[in-house]
């Protein structure tokens, strides 16, 4: 089937098998490999992208369902050299180790902060429940989101934990 969509601001058109998953279309047809496949069943969230402004797990959506959609992947998040504040937060607060869950975690966090600009720790934890990380114990992911939230509100982020205790 022929599909057309906007991915990271660029028009793309392709002919795909109807059963092609959106994540495979993104990774293998468009060669945007920043979006990862961790479970193919929408539990782990490593494949999270933005589809028409919503965080979507692209492993359980068909590429043909995204026909006409406006998609942003992790590669489209930064503004050139300028990182998105959430990306900056993950770097500044050691919110990643192996980095495999990170693109999905960042894409979910962006939507979390759009919906709740000043979330409590509990709200962050519950909002990210659909994104699994096996490396960080989530501690520094929460701190990364808090950092990003502060930056986006124009506030000074809290000190890193390793400088407090």
């Amino acid at each position, binding site marked *: 089937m022929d599909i057309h969509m906007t991915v990271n601001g660029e028009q793309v058109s392709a002919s795909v*098998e109807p*059963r*092609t998953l959106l994540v495979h279309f993104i*990774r*293998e047809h468009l*060669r*945007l*490999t*920043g*979006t*990862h*496949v*961790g*479970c*193919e*069943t929408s*539990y*782990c969230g*490593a494949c999270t992208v933005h589809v028409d402004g919503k965080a979507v797990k692209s492993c359980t959506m068909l590429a043909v369902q995204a026909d006409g959609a406006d998609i942003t*992947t*992790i*590669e489209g*998040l*930064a503004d050139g050299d300028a*990182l998105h504040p959430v*990306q900056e937060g*993950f*770097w*500044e607060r*050691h919110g*990643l*180790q*192996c*980095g*495999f*869950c*990170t*693109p999905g975690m*960042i894409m979910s966090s962006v939507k979390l902060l759009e919906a709740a600009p000043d979330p409590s*720790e509990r709200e*962050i*934890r*519950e909002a*990210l*429940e659909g*994104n*699994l*990380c*096996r*490396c*960080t*114990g*989530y*501690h*520094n992911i*929460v701190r990364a989101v808090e950092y990003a939230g502060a930056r986006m509100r124009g506030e000074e982020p809290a000190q*890193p*934990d*390793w400088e407090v*205790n």
Partner: protein
Amino acid sequence: MTETTSVLGGAVRRREDPALIRGTGKYTDDVNPTGTLHVAFVRSPFAKAKILSIDTTAAAEAAGVVAVYTAEDVRHLGPLPAQVPVRPRPLLADGQVAHAGEAVAMVVATDRYLAQDAAELVFVDYEDQAPVIDLKAAQAGDVKAHDDMDSNVIISWAGGPFGDEEAIAATRAGISAAKEREDAVVVSLEMTNQRLIPTAIEPRSVHAEWNAGYGEFRVHSSTQIAHALAGAIARVFGLANSAVHLTAPEVGGGFGAKLNIYPDEILTCFAARSLGRPVKFTETRREAAVSTIHGRGWVATATITGTRDGEILGYELEGVADMGAYTQNFTAAIPFLGLFIGSGQYTMPTYWKVDCVLTNTVVTDAYRGAGRPEAEYYLERIVDAYAREIGMDPADVRKKNYFDTFQDAISPIGFAMDTGDYAKNLDALLAFADYDGLKADRDRMRAEGRLVGIGLSSYVEVCGFGPSGLAELGFSWSEYNLPSSFNGSALLRVTPEGGATLSIGTGPSGQGHETTWAQIVNRETGIPLDRIRVLHGDTKDSPTGIGSFGSRSLAVDGAAAHEASQKVTAKASKIAAHLLEAAEEDIRFGDGAAHVAGSPDASVTWAEIAKAAYQPHLLPEGLEGSLEAHALFSPGNATWPFGSHIAMVEVDPDTGDVTLLRYIGMDDCGNVVNPMIVDGQLHGGAAQGIGQALHEHGIYDDMGNLLTTSLVDYLIPTAATLPAFELARTVTPTHVNPLGVKGIGEAGTIGSAQTIVNAVVDAVAHLGVRHIDMPLRPKRVWQAIQDAKGA
């Protein structure tokens, strides 16, 4: 009291991160050159069965299929290489399957969807047999995992001390005598340390190409042991190691599961060579549950004999450990790692014996902690039960039985430990956590009718392997065409423009080696961090290396980087002294240059030193060109980190649901290079131990079907189930490496599961509950409360 500032480096932000947060980091499944073929495996639905026939006709004719292979096609390659090959596995099941999910046939097609379609078309005629799944049944041996075996027990690990039968008998006699004392208290529990599925978020993946002209494999794999895998491939195909260029690119979590050689890695190479095309295999998540190793899987009885006033007179552990259907890399040696710390931080006589049994289940091997979480779980649970029995505070019981501050002590189980200061560490934790205040909080909440508990535990662990002589104990890398050595390796090369590349022998999967190793080189040479490039996970960059596992990277390969830096600066000192017309002993390095002590204006930059090194006419007479050094580091001992943790939990009396209110840790890994990374390792490590305590369980039914193959059946912690971690540290350096560092990758896991269980038992002990087996899911906790009430 506590020290949290780094003595060797600082919380430098990671150099790995820019690519990973932008989505430009490359993992193995991202390697996808045009023409790549894809693999799907046909897997056995039976745990134990004879294969009567395999019909691949329909699959071979299916759309996109290029080849279908069975055991007949790959038998000539031999079994899967393994370091401790007690019961090696065939690359594809050969006439017999020994666990559900074992690969029986391999389909190669032009597309991963088509490969999976065709795998459905392979018809296998099985004659199923009764499997052995239960550990005690396997130990008893009425049913064998393999029909040609006399016993399912393939090895037993016993101490202490380890390796001395007479002394072990004397230890047992002594403990028996202690039980006869009038003041003796004997506390015993049978406990399960359940089977776990490691669950790195990145499924394993391997991509192979064969260039017949060059006679060379080009392989990418999601592995922690690049050199060993390359050596194994070379050995299987009869090639020189240098004919296998293997890269472990970004690796999306390992946790021991990628510390292995897998049949699919060898078979993907076989297909690439046979077909002359690039071939890739990437596990699906469901498949990973049966195609990647599991961890833990023990049942054991722990017994403490002690006095009413808290003196432990003896500790006994007798158990059985599940090896699964075959032995892979370290399988049969994992309980041995537990034996190393069998007596923990304590001085009491210890008897320890674990039988290793084969069962018709997925192979077990190293999963974060690998034998040590099991050992500490049993010991620290029973110490806790003993403290409860005699009505003493668990902190006081521990301190009463700890080793005093030491350097080089022999543990009761028979191993030399490097340094320890256990009571200081526990006291620091009690102060940091405000233990008395915490207990007051608990008691206040209890008075309101809430089920709140505090769990305490301490641990010692052994890591940072290690001494080169470990090969003598049977840990030999020769099966992988590597020297039988656990040396660290670091090759530091000052580049012609004055920067540096450091090629290391480790294979990180998120531990930040590019950052920490650059800090080590920077500290010694003064070359700016941003001019130091750290290369890893590639057999062409690094002369040798055995990868990242067992919390060994910093203590062994990091120490090698330190020594390589010293060698390079020693030569650079000669060059700088020549260029500056100064005495060599007056040369000091810092800020990207060599300076002359006492002459602030006299300096040469690394760029100028490098320029001379690469233009020998500028060098002093007798000095050869180039500026590089390769250091191999073999420590005198492993390192023995330690620590103490406290958890506070609340149990919902109506549902049995456990909420983790606080988690507080005081860990000691000696000196620290990057405290940000060390804390991150502890967070993740503790999360995995907490996951074992509360959620995770690889469950088999009686017929050997694995019931937990998806992330909705196999639960790992989420952001919502974990609290913020409260961490601090004591610093007790080791003398077995020049950095004074100990490993930290597994400590959080080794110290945490029993902390949680101790806390939950504390919350419900007054109802009559003595123990609940992990995972402490709501139903189990609720049932334990009901049973106690009924009793």
